[in-house]
């Protein structure tokens, strides 16, 4: 019951007037970011992060995490009304959401999407409330070897779970690690891979990479599709909301399944996007009427939205307890923690109770605020998409440039943002995954430090990774994930031979 006490304390932190105002600002900005192409949760938060440097960390994280929830809500609006996923995790929502809008059931689809987002997030927050303290207490006993094993597991899960070709996942990840290693080596004080360029001294900041890869890269991709926004309109009346809500409880099993998929994919770094696809696929397979999917089946909206929100929310669990983010957006929030002077990881739960529980309480409140905001303001957001792309595109480029510059007040960063933008476009076209690159860039230094510390402890012997049952089982799990594509291929071969 200690958790409940802490949670109530958290509510008292989060429920102050300024924090509630930051929450509302965050949600509104987040929905805006979610609706606009080229701005998403990860780069939107990265751009706004420098503005929070002087804020109180609790208020700052409340605002930034609310931007995240807002972006998760906002993605659904464009998918359903315009058939344009504002966010990668809402691609699956277009499959049934847009057909519903075409049939004149846009309001029902939106209500269902927002409500299921809320349900998914709520379950994930409850999970965080009760699991995070336990995990944090457990992680207090971790040594460098355990930490490295967990980080290894994170990266091996990418290899095991990604849909992209294994070589490309590995290449993207190693590129991230290599970029993270550039600059001053904090252990020996030696310069690495700067090749005599003083601008490389401080290395590559992942915030710049996120703004470029997801912002500029996304704008280039959007250009390619030659966007002319032609969408449906929707007006949500309380009557329709109420009617839709009455039909939703019959889908409790879909909700439960999608939440489970979402939470799992969020905690292991699968992320919201694969979670939404997986959940959609499972819902269709389990449905009594799989043929109706893709033609405006409300379950096809519920399943991906629930899973995406559950995954997006539960991605914060490993970020808070272990300092290992489960998604690029969680990685940006983690970067924020470090900038505000908070060391993510289990000690956070001991040393900064106000911060942690204020954040967790704000997740409950933020999602309620978010649900109310999106249900009441949908028509206005749709209006944003009627602004011609020839206005929106250059403005977003300007916003990205400002965001990249303000991180370190460096012009070189703006140039790097462009480079990352082109890389992001090429990677997206050639199906290299972006999330492992970003996470490796964030965790690179941490992973290297824990690896070196483990090696110091063992005098260079790799056997430290199976020296006790805890580290051994994490390490074993990591190896299993790494070998997963190979095992899957083998079992496929065996299966086809039996046929």
């Amino acid at each position: 019951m200690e958790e409940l006490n802490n949670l109530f304390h958290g509510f008292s932190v989060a429920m102050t007037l300024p924090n509630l105002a930051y929450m509302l600002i965050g949600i509104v900005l987040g929905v805006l970011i979610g609706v606009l192409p080229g701005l998403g949760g990860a780069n939107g938060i990265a751009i706004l992060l420098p503005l929070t440097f002087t804020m109180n960390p609790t208020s700052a994280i409340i605002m930034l995490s609310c931007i995240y929830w807002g972006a998760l809500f906002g993605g659904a609006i464009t998918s359903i009304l315009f058939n344009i996923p504002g966010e990668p995790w809402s691609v699956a929502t277009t499959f049934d959401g847009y057909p519903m809008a075409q049939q004149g059931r846009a309001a029902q689809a939106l209500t269902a999407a927002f409500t299921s987002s809320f349900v998914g997030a709520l379950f994930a927050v409850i999970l965080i409330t009760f699991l995070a303290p336990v995990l944090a207490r457990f992680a207090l006993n971790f040594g460098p070897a355990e930490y490295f094993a967990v980080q290894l597991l994170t990266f091996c899960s990418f290899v095991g779970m990604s849909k992209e070709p294994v070589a490309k996942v590995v290449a993207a990840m190693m590129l991230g690690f290599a970029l993270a290693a550039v600059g001053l080596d904090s252990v020996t004080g030696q310069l690495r891979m700067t090749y005599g360029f003083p601008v490389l001294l401080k290395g590559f900041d992942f915030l710049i990479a996120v703004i470029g890869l997801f912002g500029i890269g996304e704008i280039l991709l959007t250009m390619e599709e030659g966007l002319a926004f032609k969408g449906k309109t929707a007006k949500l009346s309380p009557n329709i909301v109420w009617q839709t809500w009455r039909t939703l409880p019959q889908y409790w099993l879909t909700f439960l399944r999608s939440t489970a998929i979402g939470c799992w994919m969020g905690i292991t770094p699968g992320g919201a996007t694969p979670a939404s696809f997986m959940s959609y696929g499972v819902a269709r397979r389990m449905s009594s009427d799989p043929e109706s999917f893709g033609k405006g089946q409300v379950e096809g909206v519920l399943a991906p939205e629930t899973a995406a929100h559950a995954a997006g929310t539960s991605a914060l669990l490993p970020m808070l307890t272990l300092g290992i983010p489960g998604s690029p957006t969680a990685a940006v929030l983690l970067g924020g923690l470090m900038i505000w002077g908070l060391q993510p990881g289990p000690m956070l739960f001991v040393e900064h109770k106000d911060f942690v529980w204020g954040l967790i309480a704000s997740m409950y409140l933020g999602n309620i605020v978010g649900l109310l905001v999106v249900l009441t303001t949908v028509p206005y957001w749709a209006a944003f998409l009627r602004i011609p792309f020839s206005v929106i595109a250059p403005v977003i480029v300007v916003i990205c440039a400002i965001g990249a510059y303000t991180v370190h007040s460096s012009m070189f960063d703006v140039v790097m943002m462009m480079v990352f933008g082109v890389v992001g476009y090429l990677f997206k076209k050639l199906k290299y995954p972006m999330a492992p690159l970003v996470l490796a860039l964030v965790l690179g230094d941490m992973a290297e430090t824990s690896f070196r510390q483990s090696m110091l402890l063992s005098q260079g012997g790799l056997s430290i990774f199976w020296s006790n049952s805890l580290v051994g089982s994490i390490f074993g799990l990591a190896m299993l994930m790494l070998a997963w594509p190979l095992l899957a291929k083998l079992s496929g071969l065996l299966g086809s031979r039996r046929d």
Partner: protein
Amino acid sequence: MSTPDTGEGGDAGPSKDPAYLARGPELAVALGLVLLALLVIVDSLRVGIGWADDGPRSGYFPFFIGLILLAAGGFIAVSTLFTWRGSTAVFARRDELLPVFAMLIPMVVYVLAMVWLGIYLPSAVLIAYFMRRHGKFAWPSTLAVSAGVPLAFFLVFEKWFLVPLPKGPIEAMLGF
């Protein structure tokens, strides 16, 4: 207006525009990764990949990262070359790539101009250029938006949040 491209390749769609195959960019990116891997490995060797008195040296960890990157990039490059002839995966059509460059080139010019002129003037020019060239807006609305947006950013960042943005000779003339 084109149909939303699924990016799956192989099908160039109804458009008559020539399609560019993915194999060229694929090979270029893979070779780029190989080159980066070599840079990482060479410099790791320079700073030392072994052990010093106080533990692993600076190149110890990056060296292996470089090796794995080399292997992954090399694998992609080689397998692209091996399937070169039969490859039909499409990178993009010409009518898709043109707008991409229509965006990319002004963006590059914008960033380079920022280095000399600060952020405000190039931003205004960039927005005005897009609105006139691609949006076919009339001058009054173009001027209003292209001047208004940088001004709004000026107020939010410099006045409200006290975050200085890059300024050039024109702002200096105005006394900022």
